[in-house]
């Protein structure tokens, strides 16, 4: 294999979800984990502010949830696997998340994926 050696925390455009991120994001990720349950999703939909407060989200985390902004959610310690459950409540799939993070339209993002197979 010919490739350059990389260090985990020097990878481009990639947040490594490690202990530091895990500490920062714990309340947010714990809330997202609760969305495995249908009744929890319903509670959140009914009153998102109360639901976020119940899990102890910080003001920055609450703002990122309100904005439905993936880059911000990652910035405040969100883990993508748990965030996917929150995104599901908003009706957003992984292509929507990809489009949002790369600043493309969803169609352009899907085209970009397809072109990599050619």
């Amino acid at each position: 294999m010919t490739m350059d050696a990389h260090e985990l925390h020097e990878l481009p455009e990639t947040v490594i979800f490690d202990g530091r991120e895990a500490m920062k994001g714990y309340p947010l990720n714990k809330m997202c984990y609760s969305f495995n349950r249908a009744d929890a999703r319903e509670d959140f939909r009914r009153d998102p502010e109360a639901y976020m407060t119940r899990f102890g989200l910080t003001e920055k985390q609450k703002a990122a949830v309100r904005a439905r902004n993936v880059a911000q959610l990652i910035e405040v310690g969100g883990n993508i696997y748990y965030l996917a459950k929150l995104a599901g409540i908003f009706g957003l799939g992984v292509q929507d998340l990809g489009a949002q993070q790369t600043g493309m339209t969803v169609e352009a993002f899907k085209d970009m994926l397809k072109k990599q197979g050619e």
Partner: protein
Amino acid sequence: MARIIGGLTSSHIPAVGAAYAKKQFEDPYWKPFFEGYPPVHKWLAEQKPDVAVVFYNDHGLNFFLDKMPTFAIGAAFEYENQDEGWGIPALGKFRGYPELSWRIIDGVVADGFDVCSCQEMAVDHGFSVPVQLFWGDQTKNPIKTIPICVNTVQHPVPTPMRCYRFGQAIGRAISAFPGNEKVVILGTGGMSHQLDGKRAGFINKKFDLMCMEKIVDDPEELAKISTADLIQEAGAQGLEFILWLAMRGCLTGKVTRLHQNYHIPISNTAAGTLLLANAA
């Protein structure tokens, strides 16, 4: 003694579960993916394995960040695929084989891998999608399964070489099990993809195809890659390739490739399917 007759790989993309439920096998988007499976079905029908040992990663169904085991081995009579929160149909129960699970747990701990044993364990799409793709409906004549969960969610994750060695220890433990069972090993997930950050949508065909070659004949060399280099080449979630290396470690005999399929994209991901035979 139990015999490991082969290894299979498959992506475990959740969208596949949804497409399977809708039977979109002939749909132009899905066809190049689903047509990678019938040759494996034919081989499975001929070989009739009794047990499937499945390496996967939990994506936040059974495990949360409160307790995150590096290696967790299912030791239950059954495993339930439950609601994951975003809409793919839950498939219900999968059959376990705790007698063999405990033989594996005993073996790997004696070999220096201090695993978490789980007598209750919900299994997510990482496990259920590949089992459904290879064996179909599990409500009738289900195959016995042993889910083995590897942490790919929170760093530090086990190194590629550690996963390969873990597979070797499992291979030895299975081969020492006093039964006549035929066992297949599944490496699930991958191939290259990244969901998060500005690099979302990253796919690396050249690297994937190299991995599909080397995993057959030179896994020891392939497993030397560092975690950081694997993320650089395969993407943050393409890291799941360590699950393939764990599978390959279990195959200690003469390994030959019987079938291969590779397709870009399914969802945000490059999908790779392999059928490897393991001769004693």
